[in-house]
Each structure stands twice: as C-alpha cells, then as structure tokens.
C-alpha cells in the first residue's frame, strides 16, 4: 500500500519499516529553529544550571519578532539571546535586520528536502515548501530537545490537495490557499499533514510555494508538503548541499481530499476575525482601509516588490492610507533597491520597515488605532492582533494590498495586472 509523505519521513527518522498514523515515536530533529520572541527557552535552560546545548550546529536562531527592540524589556530579551548564542557556540545566528526567520531558513539553505525540523514558531510548517517535515513546538518541548536531543512525535494522518487549471491574471498563491482554508475551515486539518500537488504548482516559484505551506498552519496542520520537483532543485542549487528528498506514493491513502480548479478563481480576502472567513474581492471591495501592510512570512520577497512596483509606478497611494513595506530579508531589500523597486514604492508613498516580522504580531511597530482597518499580506487576522481590540484586519495578496492602498479601500488588483 502506498505511503504519504508523513508516513515515509516518520518511518525513516524513527528507523522503522512500518508505522501507522497515531503511533508515537521518538525522533532526533535534523534542524532546530528558534527566535527572539521564544527566548523563554533560554531563560528556562539557564534554570537547569550551567550546561551546553545538545548540538549547537543544528540550531538556527533569529532576531525577527522584536527587530529592532522598541521597549527596554525586549532589548534585554535580545541581549540575553546574543549572550547565550555566544556562550553556547551557536554559529547560525541572524541578528536584527537580517530578515524574517522562515524566509531566511530557505534563503541561506538551512532547510533541505527530506529533513525533519522543529521550531518554536507556529509557522514552522513553512518548510514543507521544499519538502521538509517541520512542525511547531512550545518552549518546554524545545528545552527537552536542547537537553536530550530528542522528543516524542505522533504520526499525523494526511490530507491531499490537488490543484488544476491555469492561475488567472491577478491571482496568486495567497488567493489559492485562502480558498483552500475556506474549504477546510480553521479547525478542518487539526493534527494533519497537508500535501499540495498539481499543475498550477509546477509554475509557482518558491516564494509562492512558501505561501501555500505557511498559510496551511491556519487550518490547524502539524506539517505541510509541497511537491518536490525541478524547481525545488533549481532553488536549492546555489547552496551546493546534498539532500535526500522524500516523495509520497501516488496510491497513498489520505484522510481527506480536496481538488480545486483555479482557472476561474477570483482574488480572495480573509475578513475579520478568522482566517476562514474568506470572500472574493468583489464581495468586499470599497471597504475603507487605513493601513496596508506588505510583508511578514508570506510577502516581502522580490516577486512581491515587483508586483507592488508595477501597480504603484507613477502613482501615489491614497492620502488617508499608510502603506508599510517590510522586506523579508536584507538581501531581498538590497536587490529591490538595485532593481529600482524601492525608489518606485517610496515615490508612491510607501514607508519601509526593518526586515523581519514587522507589525504582524502587534508587538512593536505599525499598530492599529480604535476603529482602524488594515489590509495585510500576513497570515492572521485575530481581534487585536495588530493593535486595538476595535481594529480590523483583512488578509490578501500583495497585489490586492497594493491596489487597496492606492484606492484607500479594498480593491480588485486585476485592473493593474
């Protein structure tokens, strides 16, 4: 009988020939990702007395949630992280301004097909975009790995999403995944691994594949997997690293299936206050907005700069709107400057923030006031997520966000693309 991606990687990592969903096994992760907002692990680790982490080479650490610190407490948290990294000899460390962890993991080649990763960030399943199994854990679970090198994991059941058709003009991976989340709902895939296949993915670049993998967290998944193909190999080529991809069998059995033809898909928007409250742009256009955010896990890449520049070239954003742009990494920012995108967007009225998480988690910048509405390329629109409890967050593609910034209200990007 055929096996899913999760079944195959669990068997491999747990050294088993057969393993069934629901079984619990102990696994030593290949890659361990952590960041400033989860510095609780360091605080707890210190309580265990002077000791060395189990394998500093496997740890990759980022300063992206508080980048740069806006309170004295956050500054002290980041200092604690820096001191710890030095003391423990963790080489893979990216300080304030280097970029957003999930994008950097891919950009720097820290995650490869067939690897098993854990992260203290809930968007860990992002690395499914290169065919890695990656799941989020809390501070105590991470502490257990730092001290013992292993942790228990339950083999999840899997869900298969098959896309077909041709992606229409002005529609992107963000619109597709919002449509998928609308189908499954925010609780539809709790404790499942979701796999994505299909022709529309063949032509998606890695930034778009990351959007699929990252946003599937919002339907409750433990991990995700996007087809591994020539594009994956080409993307990883520059790192010159060996890896061993895992391919699910064509006749594998899944708990749920969803087939979506994207040919007629409209730009989609997730409305307040849950990510499955998804509507097509035509149903919500005209809704007044005050802030537009391009960035966070699922935007801020070079392709997003290109799209936003194309829409804003020679124009100015609406005078009542703040357009905030967070480059996903320092090197993407540099490239966007080189290609003239940044100049175009600055002239159009955009404000640039430090590469990192930006305002998405409502921690340190770009917060919303009472009664304000934001259209964001982010992945969460919970009440108060970006500031006031009386504010609202809508989620959409980079094109939808840029077109909305131009009009001062939710707008259909297709007239510009």
């Amino acid at each position, binding site marked *: 009988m055929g096996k899913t991606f999760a079944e195959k990687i669990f068997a491999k990592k747990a050294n088993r020939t057969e393993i069934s969903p629901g079984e619990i096994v102990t696994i030593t992760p290949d890659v361990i990702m952590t960041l400033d907002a989860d510095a609780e692990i360091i605080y707890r680790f210190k309580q265990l007395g002077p000791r060395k982490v189990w394998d500093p080479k496997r740890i990759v650490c980022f300063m992206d949630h508080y980048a740069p610190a806006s309170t004295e407490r956050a500054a002290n948290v980041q200092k604690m992280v820096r001191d710890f990294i030095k003391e423990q000899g963790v080489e893979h460390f990216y300080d304030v301004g280097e970029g957003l962890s999930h994008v950097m993991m891919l950009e720097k080649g820290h995650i490869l097909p067939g690897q098993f990763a854990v992260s203290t960030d809930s968007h860990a399943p992002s690395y499914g975009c290169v065919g890695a199994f990656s799941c989020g854990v809390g501070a105590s679970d991470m502490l257990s790995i730092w*001290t013992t090198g292993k942790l228990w994991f339950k083999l999840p059941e899997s869900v298969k999403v098959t896309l077909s058709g041709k992606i229409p003009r002005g529609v992107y991976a963000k619109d597709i995944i919002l449509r998928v989340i609308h189908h499954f709902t*925010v609780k539809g895939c709790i*404790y499942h691994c979701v796999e994505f296949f299909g022709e529309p993915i063949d032509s998606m670049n890695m930034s778009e594949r990351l959007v699929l993998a990252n946003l599937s967290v919002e339907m409750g998944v433990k991990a995700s997997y996007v087809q591994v193909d020539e594009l994956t190999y080409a993307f990883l080529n520059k790192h010159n690293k060996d890896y061993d991809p895992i391919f699910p069998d064509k006749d594998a059995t899944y708990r749920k299936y969803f087939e979506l033809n994207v040919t007629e898909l409209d730009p989609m928007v997730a409305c307040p206050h849950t990510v499955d409250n998804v509507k097509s742009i035509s149903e919500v256009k005209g809704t007044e907005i005050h802030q537009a955010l391009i960035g966070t896990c699922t935007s801020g890449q070079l392709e997003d700069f290109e799209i936003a520049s194309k829409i804003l070239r020679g124009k100015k954003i609406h005078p009542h709107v703040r357009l905030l742009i967070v480059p996903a990494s320092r090197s993407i920012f540099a490239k966007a400057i080189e290609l003239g995108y940044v100049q175009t967007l600055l002239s159009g009225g955009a404000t640039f923030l430090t590469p990192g998480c930006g305002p998405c988690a409502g921690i340190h910048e770009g917060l919303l006031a009472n009664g304000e509405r934001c259209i964001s390329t982010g992945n*969460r629109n919970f009440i108060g*997520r970006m500031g006031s409890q009386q504010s609202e967050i809508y989620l959409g593609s980079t094109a939808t966000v840029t077109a909305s910034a131009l009009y001062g209200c939710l707008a259909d990007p297709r007239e510009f693309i």
Partner: protein
Amino acid sequence: MEIIEGKVFKIGDNINADYIIPARYLDLYEPEDLGRHALAGLGEEYPKMLKDYRVIVSGENLGLGSAREQAPNALKGVGIRAIVAKSFARIFYRNTLNVGLAAIECSEAAEALKHGEDVSIDLEKGIIRSRGRAYHFTSFSDQIMRLLNAGGMIPFLKRELKIND
C-alpha cells in the same frame, strides 16, 4: 495527582493563543506574571474575572495559532488547574501538558458543563463529575501522568537530569 475541584469558566470555539495571552506580554515568562494578563486578548477585564475559577471549559480548536507556551502558563498563573475542550490545537495541547496542566478532550462535558458550576476531575480514572452526572474521557498514558505529577516538563527534566533547585 489529587482530584481537581473548582468552578468552571466557559469560553467558546476557536479561542486562539493571541486571545489567551497577547503578543505584547511575550517577554514575561513566569506563570504568576503572565496570569495577570490571562485571556486579556478577549478584553482587559478577563484576568480579574478568572480569579475564582479553576477549570476552563472550551469548544473546538482551543489555543490555535501561535506556539507561545505563555498561553497555558498564563492560565496556570491565574489559578486554572485543568482545561476541558471539545478539541485542542496541537501545539497548545502539548504546551498545556508541558506546563503541568491537564488538557482534557471531552466533547460531552465541554457541551454540558455550564459557566460557574462546580466540577471535580479524577485524572487517574478519566472522570469529570458535576451535579450528579459523570463524563468519561480517555485517561492519560503513564508517560503523560508522570509529566503532570512532576508539575510539567521543566520539573520533570530537572528530576531526570538530577538537578536540585
């Protein structure tokens, strides 16, 4: 672990980790500090409201979203001893057990229990009792019971690693 007794505080479906503890408090780590902001994402009045309650009863998908372990620690800090839900988001489920709080999946109890009523929970036997009724749930494995009895992952690890406080 002895029997857990106390009043039920009822919340709805899809209560995410941001609502349990907003991100602006992520630079706090100790349960007692976090407890002052428990459920503040639902409104600043919630932490005070929670004070006399010992058991959270919730609907589906409790704790979705962020991996922050501060979420169950905030509930622990405000005095919550057990959490009953129709279903849990997976990271929150693990985090709850790891901070030494019982995470009990029991749709029947989550449906029937009313806000403010007194319950008694027997973890060993897997029974929730209230107003003469009993609701059964799958009792925890020995491994999880050891974790809960130790008071969570950190005291458990300290014991395993033979570290004295």
